[in-house]
């Protein structure tokens, strides 16, 4: 792996903490957010949210567009103090929309001037208006510190997930049930991916208790401690909440191998099953699935007679997993780009993939670095990444497959990428791409 130079001036390819926090909140059903900061940050969040393929489940009467109330801080608020703006916003949102949950986010400005925002949010139900107070009291309220100088989007997403543990309640543990943690519910095909993981787990005798987060209702969040095991699907997003739940509820957790490709899916199932004492089932299921899906994959990819070259750019778990899947399907992957530094588990997977020296992994590169690396390796046919990689792809003469956030020019992606079925679906996509079938 090649961490890029420690530059004093860096052209960022990763959004800030606020972005991730907002994405996480949008993935909770009947949750409303309040942004405590200037309107420019709020508009940026709104613009990003407009690309999300999974529409948030707002309580009525919120409209069908992304909706992000803001306290719209200005310079005069800094000088005079924003007083109780945030508390009044929390009261107002609770009264007008009656959400199950309100999550308030801070901005750089609010953090620097030392707003006691947590207190303000909690005080929302103590307003002078009795009706408002009553309404505010019905919604659970959380405060998440999301000043953008404190981290990247993965930190924001993880922070919201971890904050949700405050809402969880002690529940009798149900054996052979798992939570899937670190799922980004607004990623392309997230629902299909979750369905595939559910199917795989059910086949070995385990049930999914809660998914954090993908249109997750508050009741599921509250009941999350009922799971007998937390399975961290994406380490960078899910590890903090797994650790928080272990501390508070003694729920054990497992940072699983990203379940991409036949090998990755089988290893994922082996690991989860081993933790639940279902090893024998996993062995049987893996054999059956690998045989069945392997046959399908061969039928799709058998006609691809010219070697395909691809690169993957995204978050560590996604990159490591997808690169493995592509490699398994016969695609040569000479370069991958990790938008954020990998945790220990994702780093291990990346090392496994790149350890033979045939693939270079760039960590937090600028697009210019990524472009250089792609040119150095002789170019690729495809880049699997986000819409932000469009100019890199154009410069290197590759086709961009937008398959991670933000994906803009994608009308639908309703097949899984994860699991055994995901491997077959990707083989089918590659086969179509090889024959230039776009319809």
């Amino acid at each position, binding site marked *: 792996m090649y961490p890029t130079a420690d*530059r*004093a*001036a*860096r*052209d*960022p390819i*990763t*959004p*800030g903490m*606020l*972005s991730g926090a907002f994405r996480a909140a949008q993935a909770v059903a009947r949750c409303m957010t309040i942004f405590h900061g*200037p*309107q*420019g*940050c*709020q*508009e*940026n969040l709104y*613009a*990003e949210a*407009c690309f*999300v393929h*999974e*529409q948030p489940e707002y309580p009525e009467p919120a*409209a*069908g*567009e992304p*909706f*992000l*109330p*803001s*306290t*719209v*801080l*200005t*310079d005069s608020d*800094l000088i005079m103090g924003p007083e109780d703006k945030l508390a*009044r*916003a929390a009261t*107002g*949102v609770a009264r007008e929309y009656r959400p199950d949950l309100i999550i308030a986010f801070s*901005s*750089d*400005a609010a953090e*620097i001037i030392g707003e006691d925002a947590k207190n303000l949010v909690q005080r929302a139900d103590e307003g002078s208006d009795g009706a408002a107070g009553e309404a505010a009291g019905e919604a659970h309220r959380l405060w998440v510190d999301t*000043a*953008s*100088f*404190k981290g*990247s989007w993965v930190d924001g997403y993880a922070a919201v997930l971890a904050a949700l543990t405050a809402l969880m309640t002690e529940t009798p543990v149900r054996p052979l049930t798992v939570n899937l943690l670190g799922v980004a519910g607004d990623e392309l095909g997230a629902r299909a991916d979750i369905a595939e993981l559910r199917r795989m787990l059910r086949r070995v005798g385990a049930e999914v208790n809660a998914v954090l987060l993908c249109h997750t209702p508050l009741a599921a969040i509250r009941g999350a401690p009922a799971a007998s095991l937390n399975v961290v699907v994406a380490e960078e997003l899910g590890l903090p909440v797994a650790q928080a739940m272990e501390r508070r509820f003694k729920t054990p957790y497992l940072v699983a191998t990203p379940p991409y490709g036949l090998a990755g899916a089988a290893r994922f199932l082996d690991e989860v099953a081993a933790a639940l004492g279902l090893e024998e089932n996993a062995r049987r299921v893996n054999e059956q699935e690998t045989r069945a899906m392997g046959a399908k994959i061969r039928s799709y990819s058998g006609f691809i007679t010219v070697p395909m070259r691809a690169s993957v750019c995204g978050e560590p778990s996604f990159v490591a997993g997808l690169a493995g899947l592509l490699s398994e399907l016969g695609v040569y992957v000479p370069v991958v780009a990790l938008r954020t530094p990998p945790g220990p588990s994702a780093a291990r997977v990346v090392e496994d993939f790149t350890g033979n020296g045939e693939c270079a992994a760039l960590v937090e590169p600028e*697009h210019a670095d990524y472009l250089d690396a792609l040119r150095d390796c002789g170019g690729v046919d495809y880049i699997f990444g986000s*819409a*932000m990689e*469009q*100019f890199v792809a154009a410069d290197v003469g590759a086709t961009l497959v937008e398959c991670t956030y933000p994906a*803009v*020019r*994608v*009308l*639908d992606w309703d097949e899984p990428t994860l699991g055994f079925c995901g491997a077959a679906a990707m083989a089918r996509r590659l086969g179509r791409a090889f024959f230039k079938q776009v319809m």
Partner: protein
Amino acid sequence: MRLKEACPEGPFRGRAAELEAWLASGRASRPDWYHPVRVCGLFGAMRIFASIRGAVPLVHGPPGCAYFQKFQVVISFGHPVPAPCTGMGENDVIHGGEDRLRRAVLEVDRRYKPRLIAVLNTCTPMIIGDDVAAVLHDVRGEVGARYLLAVNADGLQHYSQGHGYNAALAGLIENVMQPAGIRLERSVNLFGEVVGGDAALARDKFLLRDMLARIGVYVNAMVPAGSAVEDIERAPRARLNVPRCGPMAGPAARLMRERFDVPFVSPAMPYGVANSERWLMSVAEFFGLEEGARRVIAAERRRLRPLLAQARAGLAGKRAAVHGGPGRVAANIRFAHELGCRIEVVSLFFATEAAYRQVLDAVAETGQDPLILIDRSMEEVRRTVAEQGIEAWFGNSLDFPATYMQSGLAAFETLIYQVPYEGFIGCANALRHVVHRSQHVPLARPAGARGTAGAPRAACRGGGERRWHG
């Protein structure tokens, strides 16, 4: 330079007469919370400097600030933008970001070898009080860049992109532009052009250049998009500035008039036939070239007549909403009126008094009395559009992607498009777009109808339009 003008800064809802009274009162109050949609000064300043060849904007702030501006430009306008950033972290907030800025300026100078480095100051260094000017003064002798500018582009004081445009243009006027030794006859600057690259929006300015050439007026500089730093230096050679839109006809245009004696005219953006005529004629009148302009206008009217009639056939009598940035709104009011629409709702972001005046003038010309919403919550705008039974939409679909796509409104989108729309040539494209949206889009639904979200929304923002018009 005063960027804020003596007009109320806050939301407004009412009719034209009430807007006049509101402007005169100078008073506005903001609600404690709402959902406005307007980017901050950083976006405006970033776009100005990112569009100049030989200039590099350096964002002094956390990486998230730089990424967001980059994201908006890349996704919405379809061209790459360098956004080097000092990447302030928690330590910098505590200890100050000046040392980081110093190193970043030197690195930007070494890496990009620009002629101009513009340090864009965001909220964080503004609040903690980083002395950006002092840092730039210190490093001036160590860099190869000829110009080092500091521009305040925080979102707390500069809470609209118009503020950012004006602050950045003022920086260019005060630091880069050189006194003109000669003044070029019949020359203008297209002032406040901000779209670089080869996106459709960027091609509009070349259509305007060609349109002016038809009456014998030549473009000295496009300030700044598409220009090199050297072109900006020479901008004061022009006889006249033609600001791109209302907000561009504000403080920066006045500053250039004071500093270099370059006056400006302020026509609405040239969308549609009437606006294009007015735009051309305002320049022609300044140079005494009305006769030539009338000939061009007559020829273009003949050429566009069949298409205009076809577009009118689809829209005449429809209840229309006009929404967007203040510059586009004034133009779109006239365009919608020209197409025979009944304008029921006009919605715009926070702007300057000059921009509000343009809107009021346009409304008065139509003889209609629409409901005017300024800087209102997006939810309120959507609700109002639904309540008014709007059938046609003029303006940014970016702000209401799902509403725009799912309703299938007969609409003229002015922010994301794949062919130029301005001037007479662009007008033909715009009219074809209107015909397509009003007569060919399947499954049209009335405004406010809810439907499935997701893919159409994504398609609207960048992808879909591209496919339809590619």
